[in-house]
């Protein structure tokens, strides 16, 4: 048998570190695939049996999992009702504000609030709905991950007796959610487009950036823009691309587009994060005077408007929407109904250099 001084010291360390307290485990030897005990003490017989059974780990793990599921007690409802808030990633300040406002309002009304993030993955959202149902939540406030893909989850919550209040994005079904509170995206888009027309002087070439295709809001805003802009024959749309609400994607796409159309005069974007990415690309190419208009009313763009870079955006009153959703959830939990219709929309407000001085986080001071 080869013994090197190196091995010796490692082995000693091993012995000291792991086995200093298991003197009784001597005489039991385990190899990779088979168990050959040299049983000396009764203790080691018991341990040997345990270790041998552990070797059939597949069966043991199945047994553990199944028995856990069977012997575990059922969930108990807590005294303070829970409101689950399920939103897209808070990397976008819009969704962060949405979640924070809902959480604050829920706590102010005496509920426990749990904020969960679905990252625009409909499957993850489905699992988070499952979690809320298992926690016996009183209500779910949700900014959903897909108008078609979210219907099953909301239905599941409904049959479990939990009302869902949708904020910011709708689903393609009525009668499943208790309320769908959205900003009037179409009205907001027309506001933005009219400001864009004014700034462009009613002529010139422009680019449109569209949001994520699976989000209804992307299509609604695009329609609003096009309904206004198509009425001006001197305004030419040279490119329309989707940047999936992403700042980096917008940056890259606009970088490419201005290679093809270097004389573009304006850019209208489906939301603020894309507008920021687009403006960064334009500025880097020395075209900082291109007219850019966004949508959302995020604080980054408000700052940009103050600095004279992006020209305008459309404010979505998301704080107000979130709070309304929680208030209606509270009313539903107490009375079993709200006296509001399912689809509710609040108008958007235009933010440009004139009124940006009064801007607060997704709100406007009077």
């Amino acid at each position, binding site marked *: 048998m080869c013994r090197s001084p190196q091995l010796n010291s490692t082995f000693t360390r091993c012995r000291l570190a792991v086995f200093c307290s298991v003197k009784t485990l001597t005489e039991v030897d385990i190899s990779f695939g088979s168990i050959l005990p040299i049983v000396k003490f009764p203790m080691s017989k018991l341990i040997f049996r345990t270790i041998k059974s552990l070797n059939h780990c597949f069966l043991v793990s199945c047994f553990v999992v199944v028995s856990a599921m069977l012997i575990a007690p059922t969930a108990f409802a807590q005294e303070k009702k829970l409101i689950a808030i399920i939103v897209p990633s808070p990397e976008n300040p819009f969704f962060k504000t949405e979640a924070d406002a809902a959480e604050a309002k829920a706590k102010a009304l005496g509920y426990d609030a749990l904020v969960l993030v679905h990252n625009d993955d409909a499957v993850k959202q489905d699992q988070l709905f499952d979690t809320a149902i298992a926690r016996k939540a009183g209500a779910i406030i949700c900014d959903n991950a897909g108008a078609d893909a979210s219907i*099953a989850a909301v239905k599941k919550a409904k049959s479990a007796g939990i009302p869902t209040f949708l904020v910011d994005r709708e689903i393609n079904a009525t009668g499943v959610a208790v309320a769908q509170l959205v900003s009037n995206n179409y009205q907001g888009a027309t506001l933005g487009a009219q400001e864009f027309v004014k700034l462009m002087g009613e002529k010139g070439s422009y680019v449109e950036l569209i949001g994520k295709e699976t989000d209804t809001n992307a299509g609604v805003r695009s329609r609003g823009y096009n309904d206004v802009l198509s009425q001006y024959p001197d305004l030419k749309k040279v490119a329309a691309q989707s940047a999936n609400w992403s700042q980096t994607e917008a940056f890259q796409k606009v970088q490419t587009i201005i290679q093809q159309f270097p004389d573009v005069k304006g850019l209208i974007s489906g939301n603020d994060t894309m507008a920021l990415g687009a403006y960064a690309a334009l500025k880097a190419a020395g075209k900082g005077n291109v007219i850019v208009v966004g949508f959302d009313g995020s604080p980054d763009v408000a700052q940009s408007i103050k600095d004279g870079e992006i020209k305008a955006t459309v404010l979505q009153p998301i704080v107000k929407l979130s709070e309304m959703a929680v208030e209606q959830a509270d009313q539903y939990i107490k009375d079993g109904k709200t006296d509001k219709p399912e689809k509710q929309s609040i108008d958007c407000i235009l933010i440009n250099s004139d009124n940006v001085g009064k801007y607060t986080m997704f709100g406007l001071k009077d």
Partner: protein
Amino acid sequence: MTTALSSSAESTGVSRLSIGVFLFRLRAFIALLILIGIFTLLTPSFFTRENLIILVGQTAINAIMAVGMTFVILTGGIDLSVGSTVGLAAMVSGLLIDRGLELPMFGVVVYFNVPAIIFLVLCLGILVGAFNGLLVTRFNVAPFIATLGTLYVARGLAQLSNEGATFPNLVGNPELGNTGFPILGAGTILGIPIVIWIMVLFTALGWFVAGKTPFGRQVYAVGGNERAAELSGINVQRIKMAVYMICGMCAAMTGLVTASQLVAAHPATGESYELNAIAAVVLGGTSLAGGRGTVWGTLIGALVIGVLTNGLVLLGVQEFWKKVITGLVIILAVVLDQLQARLQQRLALKRG
């Protein structure tokens, strides 16, 4: 791989070292028990029947994929296209239910019933796997690159299938005989969701095939030492083809299950699922270099990830911290994996 030990010359040193190695092999299982214990203590809503069923149900989606991935990684390869295969399978099942198969040359639209759709989509998964296998065996492309390419191709095809839109409302039409699809995702047998039964079935089959059949032995041989396996007469190309096809089939099953749960087919389904599958396999003790690992280890690895995710959600941990913690757990698992390899080497030297 399994060596029977002669009973003579059992020095205490060897036995103690091998106990250490044995417990070390069980580290994923021990970690699972520790995590369950920690979360049970930290929050009362963890160890409840509803939560555990949800936990295992969510794990099942990852576990089914990870079982297939285990076979590929055991041969020393990797399959990055599983996430896109999930998406493609989901979209194809949505297409078959929603629009049926259009055959313009015969002027008919064929609507298959649900068992036929499941069979066809699984075949599609096998086809994608065969494509991967072809690239790796026939054209000698490195598995990483080959499956990376398939990742993009399959994702693009999934999005093309309905111009980026979702196939909504996959309940089917009784007149066309294709109802019953949602049962796969939402149905229960004996109170336990069908998803979990599928996971158990796939894991049991995988464990049996890998551990108890000649094919499984050949997979381990190819991963352990490919040249030696080839020289011993094992058809390495065929084994590699087979494992990629198994992986593709498991990914297709996951796609079916997700589409069924959502009752809709979403083109972005499965994005970055491959990373979760690989994490589960690695956490379970399978070496990325191939030749070492078990299917039940993968199941434990998937459960560890599931418990971690579920527990952190229940604790209300901020989303970004969850990512950091999950990443650290995976890094720890890979580091321990390396330690295990070295410990086993030491033990082999000691006996030699």
